[in-house]
């Protein structure tokens, strides 16, 4: 009888506590609220050239003019501080930087780029007073933080600090350099024009881009978790601790390098499959397969115009 009472009491507490745990933060940021600062465009141009892998002259035109930078910072508290969190950050145009730190909240700095608001009238007698609004939504529910921004034309960078034990899903497209550092979790990253750089990652990661290198340095790799690294123009460069075990499936038109002695290449095997009519299909693919320290989960590395590196750190 006493037990039932205890159970009921606990249940009541849980039911009452539940609404308090979930919270939604909806942030609408208006450009006018931003502190406006002007920066030399040369810096941005240099940065962009470094972070993308050529082929992008088209968009550089607009960078020829001075751009405005506006920034705002917000802090998102977590419903369950200390427990593993998840960040889903999606944008169309802008660089994403996520760093793990020893704090309990998610800190987001939003930087907006745009044409300079002009002081003088231009030739046609008009003066630019606002350079296109943008907005983003941020919400938190049960330690899942979601930030969305969907402007194609205005570049918006996000610099985010999260507690170290966070899983990340990051998506961007243009100016899409993704940088992640000091995270202990599972990373799922996608860009198009921009490299993906991972530093001091503990856990697992998968990253795809088109124009840009993928470089990942792991301090530890979760065993038996498959990973996928895919780009078109750029190197794939992975560093893992010496004892890491995995199977590699690699494909490139260029070269593959490693400094692991315990790396074994397996014979290229044609894929044999039974087809419906009782015959066999045979497919010979130019995947290079190998294993590291005896093999483990599949790690796929694919590029067309770039080398593949597997290093020990």
């Amino acid at each position, binding site marked *: 009888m006493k037990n039932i009472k205890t159970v009921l009491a606990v249940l009541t507490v849980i039911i009452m506590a539940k609404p308090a745990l979930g919270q939604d933060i909806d942030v609408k940021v208006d450009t006018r609220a931003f502190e406006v600062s002007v920066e030399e465009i040369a810096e941005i141009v240099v940065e962009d050239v470094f972070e993308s892998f050529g082929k992008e002259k088209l968009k550089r035109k607009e960078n020829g003019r001075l751009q405005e930078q506006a920034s705002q910072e917000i802090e998102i508290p977590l419903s369950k501080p200390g427990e593993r969190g998840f960040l889903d950050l999606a944008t169309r145009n802008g660089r994403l930087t996520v760093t793990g730190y020893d704090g309990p909240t998610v800190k987001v700095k939003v930087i907006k780029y745009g044409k300079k608001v002009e002081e003088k009238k231009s030739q046609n007698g008009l003066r630019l007073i606002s350079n296109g609004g943008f907005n983003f939504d941020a919400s938190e529910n049960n330690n899942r933080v979601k930030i969305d921004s969907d402007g194609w034309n205005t570049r918006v960078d996000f610099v985010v600090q999260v507690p170290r034990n966070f899983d990340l899903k990051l998506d961007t*497209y243009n100016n899409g350099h993704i940088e992640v550092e000091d995270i202990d979790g599972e990373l*799922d990253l*996608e860009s198009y024009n921009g490299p993906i750089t991972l530093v001091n990652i503990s856990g697992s990661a998968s990253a795809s881009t088109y124009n840009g290198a993928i470089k990942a340095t792991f301090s530890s790799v979760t065993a038996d978790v498959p990973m*996928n690294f895919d780009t078109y123009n750029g190197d794939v460069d992975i560093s893992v601790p010496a004892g890491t075990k995995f199977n590699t499936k690699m494909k490139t038109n260029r070269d593959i390098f490693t400094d692991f002695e315990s790396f074994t290449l397996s014979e290229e095997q044609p*894929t044999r*499959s039974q*087809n419906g009519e009782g015959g066999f*299909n045979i497919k010979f693919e130019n995947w290079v397969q190998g294993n590291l320290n005896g093999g483990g989960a*599949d790690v796929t590395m694919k590029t067309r115009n770039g080398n593949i590196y597997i290093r020990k750190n």
Partner: protein
Amino acid sequence: MEEQYISLITDYIDDNLSIERKREFDAYVVEGHIDLNEVNELMAFAAKIEKSDAPLPSAALSDNFYTILNAERAKTNIDKSDWTFDRIWQVLFGTNGGRLAFGMVILLVGVVLGRGYSGSAYQTELKMLSSQMSEMRQLMSVAMLDGDAVSERLKGVQMSSELVSSNKEVTSAMFVTLNNDESTNVRMAALNLLAQYVNDPIIREGLINSISEQESPLMQLALAELMVELQEKKSVEEFNDIIEDEFTPEEVKTTLRESVNKIM
């Protein structure tokens, strides 16, 4: 009474003794080899037997005998198999040749059965086991493809790698992942896997249909690359739809146009 004297004694009883044999007989009696009293007793018994009537079988007895005989005949006719079995048994085991032939036949049947059936029985068991295994793998990989975490879904793709194409459920689950998974990395893994089975017409068809399902330029371009490799003309129309879409980034359109030109 000793046996050697029996013939003498019987002849004496029947009164058939010659003079010499009579003398011999008398000599044996005097010597004590033959006990006269005993001989007399035997003589009296023989006389008694001769005097008594021989019993004649009654008519009823004869009738009974024939009825029983007929009944027995009828019975053996019904149990003919018994009779043949006995007969075969007799032929097979009654003679050395039969035994040898029987042994040879058994050996031959054994060899034939052994080669024909025992091998396939082993194989059936093996097949059953492996089908159970693949069923388990199927259940597991389909469940994992449905998981919340990216790593789990990637594991699901990896696990399905040996089942795709031969297992319809896994193949269709893989297409659901290819077309609907929210992570481009998981979709890409599914594409890498399915691209190994392009000779399977169902998979090839599924990949062509998948072109219009993809929103990520990375997936559109990866599929374009594959279709160029396969020179798959049916894909051209799908790519043209993407090229005409106003939301497709200009540079993706350019690359797709290049790919389409390579297919033509």
